[in-house]
């Protein structure tokens, strides 16, 4: 028997919404290739969106490879966790350990998470969905995916796209807000580098200690913080260089590829092309702006009490977008004063943001029931 009804089914099932999703997917691919915006994620996401929106696509049908990846890697939260191992192996916490007070900037810059949560409740979202939207402000893709999978699976695609899109726009968003909140004099404040080094034992014990502390405060955060710190322990132990390298390269690349195309496959026309998506994109921008403002204003607040002033711009580096945010702040500092080198301070605040954003995710999971 010959069945001909499967032939051209895609053409007959094609609607305007599908075409619009092809354009959305194509735009993401264009941004990745032509504009270099988070290419390792936006390119697979864009192509995944195209694969998912071909009418009757077997890739996303039950048993299709993208449906399988979604079930195994996203709904089980496995991919974000594996990404955290890779990020941990890439993170050098030494600048933070040299200057522990930078940890506070990581905390202050999480303001956007909770502020946006409230904004989302005002927009009429139920609490769990509002929490998942707020976590875009963590500027941390895997944490956003992790929380959205638990609290708002139907919003997973727009939340992930918003998180990664705004992360790639950090060099545009942050300078705009920082310039409005600081004076040129404040932006020129120089900060001395701590000369004291950090022992290897401290570097090794830090990830273990953080895991224990975070786990005791919010046990629900253990998968997130534990995987980040496990990756970091691989790096700092220097006992398993092959594993550390594998986590930083092969694991990071492979999971990023699978994560991207799988997230893209959740961008189905019927759920993505809605006013809710536009609202989430808008609130994502609010989250990033509030994060940046929270960090900078906290720096200015501290300066009211400090004799040796700090450059409030490093507060903006307390978000998790690593190392982009630190680079942006360092570049802004040298633009104001070519002799002002803030990179190490900004990197310290940036890795603090990495830890604090995960804690924000953990606290959201613990507080919202």
């Amino acid at each position, binding site marked *: 028997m010959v069945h001909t009804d499967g032939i051209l089914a895609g053409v007959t099932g094609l609607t305007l919404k599908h075409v619009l999703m092809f354009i959305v997917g194509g735009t993401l691919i264009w941004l990745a290739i032509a504009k270099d915006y988070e290419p390792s994620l936006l390119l697979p996401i864009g192509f995944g969106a195209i694969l998912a929106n071909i009418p009757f696509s077997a890739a996303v049908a039950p048993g299709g490879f993208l449906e399988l990846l979604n079930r195994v890697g996203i709904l089980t939260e496995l991919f974000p966790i594996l990404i955290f191992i890779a990020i941990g192996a890439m993170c050098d916490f030494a600048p*933070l*350990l040299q200057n*522990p*007070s930078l*940890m*506070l900037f*990581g*905390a202050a810059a*999480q*303001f956007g*998470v*909770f*502020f946006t*949560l*409230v904004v*989302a*409740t*005002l*927009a*009429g*979202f*139920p*609490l769990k*969905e*509002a*929490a998942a939207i707020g976590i875009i402000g963590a500027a941390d893709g895997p944490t956003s995916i992790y929380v959205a999978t638990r609290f708002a699976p139907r919003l997973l695609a727009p939340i992930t796209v918003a998180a990664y899109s705004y992360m790639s726009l950090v060099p545009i968003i942050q300078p705009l807000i920082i310039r409005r909140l600081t004076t040129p004099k404040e932006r020129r404040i120089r900060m001395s580098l701590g000369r*004291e*080094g*950090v*022992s290897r*034992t*401290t570097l090794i*014990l*830090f990830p273990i*200690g*953080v895991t224990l*502390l*975070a786990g005791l*405060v*919010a046990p629900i955060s253990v998968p997130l913080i534990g995987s980040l710190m496990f990756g970091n322990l691989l790096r700092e132990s220097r006992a398993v260089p092959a594993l550390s390298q594998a986590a930083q390269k092969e694991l990071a690349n492979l999971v990023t590829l699978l994560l991207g195309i799988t997230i893209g496959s959740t961008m189905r026309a019927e759920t993505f092309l809605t006013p*809710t998506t536009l*609202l989430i994109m808008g609130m994502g921008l609010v989250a990033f702006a509030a994060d940046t403002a929270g960090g900078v204003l906290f720096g200015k607040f501290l300066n009211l009490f400090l004799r040796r002033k700090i450059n409030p711009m490093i507060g903006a580096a307390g978000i998790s977008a690593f190392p982009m945010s630190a680079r942006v702040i360092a570049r802004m500092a040298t633009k104001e004063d070519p002799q002002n080198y803030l990179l190490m301070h900004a990197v310290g605040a940036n890795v*603090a943001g990495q*830890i*604090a954003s995960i*804690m*924000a995710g953990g*606290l*959201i999971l613990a*507080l*919202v029931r």
Partner: protein
Amino acid sequence: MDRVNTEVVLAGLRILGWGMAGILVTTSLFMLLIYVLRRAFPPKPESEEPKDAS
């Protein structure tokens, strides 16, 4: 998405308060951990670092 629910907004505000307090407490604990580790395990003076055989 529903109409604005005052109870949900108030719950959001409570999470804002508790969340920021929780973040500040945990980061303070991490700072304390760093101070303790650095005090307990200071870096070795350079002369004690293993030297290259050559």
